């Protein structure tokens, strides 16, 4: 298992060997950034209340970005880490870089900058055993009270050394743990999930009990007609809403490309909306893949978009300072927030938010959401794991699966939002290095959500 004490020297040696090889093969004018990473990922899945898949992998990966002639760049990565493999990696990358045309917009290497931390890995999480994860599964399953349960418990650890020819030498490490499951009863599913940097923070039994209660409340669902409904979105659904906005709207590449409909400086959202990317509270590393330190990036303040996520290329194009959001895929998909957090509001609990609905829907989770119109951030998707009809502030009936087609930007328009008070960190995929990111969100109540279909089509 990765250990900061052991991994630092090991990864240091590896990164140093790659840089030495770069200087030897490419000369001292070459610009190179090396990341040596040691990762472990262990995941225990269960279905029908039994563990059916149980995996663990560990690997060391070396990433090299090499630029010659001030703009001929190639990147490469390998899981081979022995001496001859290092020489091969540099030779192949150098050959590729020399064959590339010079990129006039190459942003260069960053300046050395101090880190705010070296990350906050949890030793116990890094060392978690298959038995520890199985115990989490057993607790979740037992707490469902005999319902059929499915889901997973994951522990992951990542240690990284980043070094470059400009003299930067950074070390960071992180861990994460997830418990995520559903309980199933007569065609109704209820969900509960949570994510933390520490396995010990997760209460799998409480999650199982919550999922079971949701499933029991979802039996005998009825259809409702399409139309615009006021909704309360529970944290799992809000994670999708926030995930869609940070990936498609606050992403610097989307702004450069013109596919973002964000209006920086305008009161585009309700005053209750304050959104930031906050790696210090999440499970990200303290620097990005270009070595830029990560820090809290304010994205929306009191309903006004004020920030973007950028890497060095998009920052240069937008005449901004890089925000520390480069990733292995940011050249293709753009720099995306890794630890988004929607600040809690004054709306109270989910029950409080539901109490304010005259007639509307309570939605647990969203599924298979895809962009229909990029600039308006129109997404289509489905409800999943429970939706309920609310009348006069009371849940009156479970509702069958619904399709929506909704602008995420417009859903948060001024006057349309009440934000709950209880933040519930959710696992959500945002291109993070360990598969899942932590999205810290409360529930929200929205004035309108456009339902465009039901189980009947």
């Amino acid at each position, binding site marked *: 298992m990765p250990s900061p004490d052991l991994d630092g020297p090991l990864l240091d040696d590896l990164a140093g060997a790659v840089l030495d090889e770069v200087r030897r093969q490419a000369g001292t004018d070459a610009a190179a950034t090396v990341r040596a990473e040691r990762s472990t990922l262990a995941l225990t899945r269960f279905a*029908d209340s039994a563990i059916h898949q149980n*995996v663990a*992998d560990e690997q060391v990966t070396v990433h090299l970005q090499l630029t010659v002639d001030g703009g001929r760049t190639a990147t*490469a990565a390998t899981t081979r880490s022995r001496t001859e493999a290092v020489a091969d990696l540099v030779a192949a990358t150098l050959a590729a870089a020399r*064959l590339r045309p010079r990129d006039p917009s190459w942003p260069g290497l960053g300046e050395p900058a101090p880190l705010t931390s070296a990350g906050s890995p949890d030793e116990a999480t890094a060392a978690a055993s*298959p038995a520890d994860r199985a115990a989490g599964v057993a607790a979740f399953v037992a707490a469902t009270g005999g319902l059929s349960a499915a889901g997973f418990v994951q522990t992951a650890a990542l240690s990284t050394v980043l070094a470059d020819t400009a003299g930067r030498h950074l070390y960071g490490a992180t861990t994460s743990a997830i418990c995520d499951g559903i309980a199933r009863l007569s065609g109704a599913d209820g969900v509960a999930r949570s994510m933390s940097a520490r396995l010990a923070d997760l209460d799998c039994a409480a999650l199982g009990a919550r999922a079971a209660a949701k499933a029991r409340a979802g039996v005998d669902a009825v259809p409702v007609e399409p139309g615009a409904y006021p909704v309360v979105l529970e944290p799992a659904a809000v994670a999708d809403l926030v995930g869609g906005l940070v990936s498609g709207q606050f992403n610097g590449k989307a702004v450069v490309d013109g596919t973002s409909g964000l209006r920086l400086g305008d009161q585009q959202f309700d005053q209750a909306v304050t959104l930031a990317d906050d790696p210090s509270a999440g499970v990200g590393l303290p620097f990005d893949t270009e070595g830029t330190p990560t820090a809290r990036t304010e994205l929306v303040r009191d309903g006004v978009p004020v920030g973007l996520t950028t890497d060095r290329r998009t920052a240069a194009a937008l005449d901004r300072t890089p925000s520390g959001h480069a990733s292995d895929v940011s050249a293709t998909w753009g720099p995306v927030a890794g630890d988004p957090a929607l600040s809690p509001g004054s709306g109270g609990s989910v029950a409080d938010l539901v109490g304010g609905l005259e007639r509307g829907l309570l939605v647990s989770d969203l599924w298979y959401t895809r962009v229909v119109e990029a600039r308006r951030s129109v997404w*289509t998707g*489905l409800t999943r794991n429970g939706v309920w009809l609310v009348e006069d502030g009371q849940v009156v009936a479970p509702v069958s699966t619904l399709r929506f087609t909704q602008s995420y930007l417009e859903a948060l328009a001024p006057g349309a939002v009440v934000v709950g008070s209880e933040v519930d960190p959710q696992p959500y995929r945002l291109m993070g290095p360990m598969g899942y990111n932590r999205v810290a969100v409360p529930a929200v109540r929205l004035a309108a959500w456009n339902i465009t*279909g039901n189980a009947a*089509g």
Partner: protein
Amino acid sequence: MSIANEPGGGSAVEPAAFEAATAAVEAALAAGARYADARLVDRRHESMTARDGDVRSLSQTASVGLGVRALVGSSWGFAALGDPAGDADARRTGARATAIAQASAAVPGPPMELVGVPAVQADWASECLEDPFAVPLAEKGDLLTGVTATMRAAGVAVAEALHQAWDTRTAFVSSEGARIGQHIRETGAGMHCLTVGDGETQRRSYPAFRGQYGTRGWELVRELDLPGHADRIAAECQELLTAPPCPSSETTLLLGGEQMSLQIHESVGHAIELDRILGWEAAFAGTSWLDLTQLGSLRFGSELMNITIDPTLPGALGSFGYDDEGTPATARDAVRNGIWVGVLAGRDSAALAGLGYAGSVRADGYARLPMVRMTNVGLEPGPHTLEEMIAATDDGVLMEHNRSWSIDDRRLNFQFGCEIGWEVRNGRKGRMLKNPSYTGIGPRFWSSLDMLAGRAPGEWRAWGTPNCGKGQPGQVGHTGHGAAPARFSGVRVGVRS
């Protein structure tokens, strides 16, 4: 540990790779497993992107490692290790897989056996006329920068192009005596452009929205003729900004072959995955509306609907010689004359379901657990041509090239958006329509299939999908889908927000 890169012939897998896999299997058995298999996988990947006339990224990755499955009672364990240093690392990984399986037994499932497969000792390689890794990078760069420069010069806001290639060599060993070497090369490319209007963006792609891919060499890219289509898609992309929107109505829908491939992938391919049907993916990928008690009798679609599972299709992206459980590639029916008759299965899921066949289990590299995946799930060509379908349509919409896709967790309720549409009136293709979309319910939609093309040369094609996501930890699968243009009646189109 590595696998030799020798051109020609079979898989060229080194004996040392088999030795490592064998050591891992032996160690898993010694630790208490009743079955074990191991794959030593050596994979190279190259990706180049260009944007607006410049190469934007060039990435090359190499991964080599060992993945071991162990079965203890009815419980599985899987362990993977990158770049094992030798016999000791291999044995440690095998023993770890068994230890994980033993931990799984703390929350056990029902008794489980494996469908039998012959203990094959074989060697297989996909056909590759022109090794994509041997094509000079400069030539690839010239191709991609050239087409993006052409599109930009034609006035679009953003022009991007991409090529990818994979070279994967696998040594597979099982405790039942299988020993299989396999070498698969996959290649693909594509391009797209964006235009930005007042509050909207439009996109056009060629040949498909993610490109076209196959288990072939660079000859696939040459056949695509990207330069020959750059001006056309740039012009269409600009024309879309001023085109009228697709009307909201219930009408006759004609779909191009590329969009049909995704329709098949999402509403048929995933629905017939046996792990979903059994509930193994209930918490993540989802389940299926299909009920095993209706296998052989359920009407999935119209008589024109004939879906095959065929990993033997030469050059298609989901083709192989043996799956990652060592089962030989075999073609079988999934839907015949509209009746559901087959599933995508693995050795454990098939045995649990009482079926006698497996063959659709694959893993995304050494570090991921083999699981039920699509291979080539395709629609057989039909008796019509696109021209005939248009001529036979009084009022409808023709849509091409996927832009968005969404489907529920039982694979019933779907909504697709396409890049471009055209009115079809009185048997003729009319004006261009922007933002076309359609929605429906799987079996009802497939039952409305009333005309199917494929008779004219080039109408039926095995499209490749290089990014099918499934599994936890996440895996990216490469799948193939034979498809041709098709016509459906009474479909809801023009879904609005």
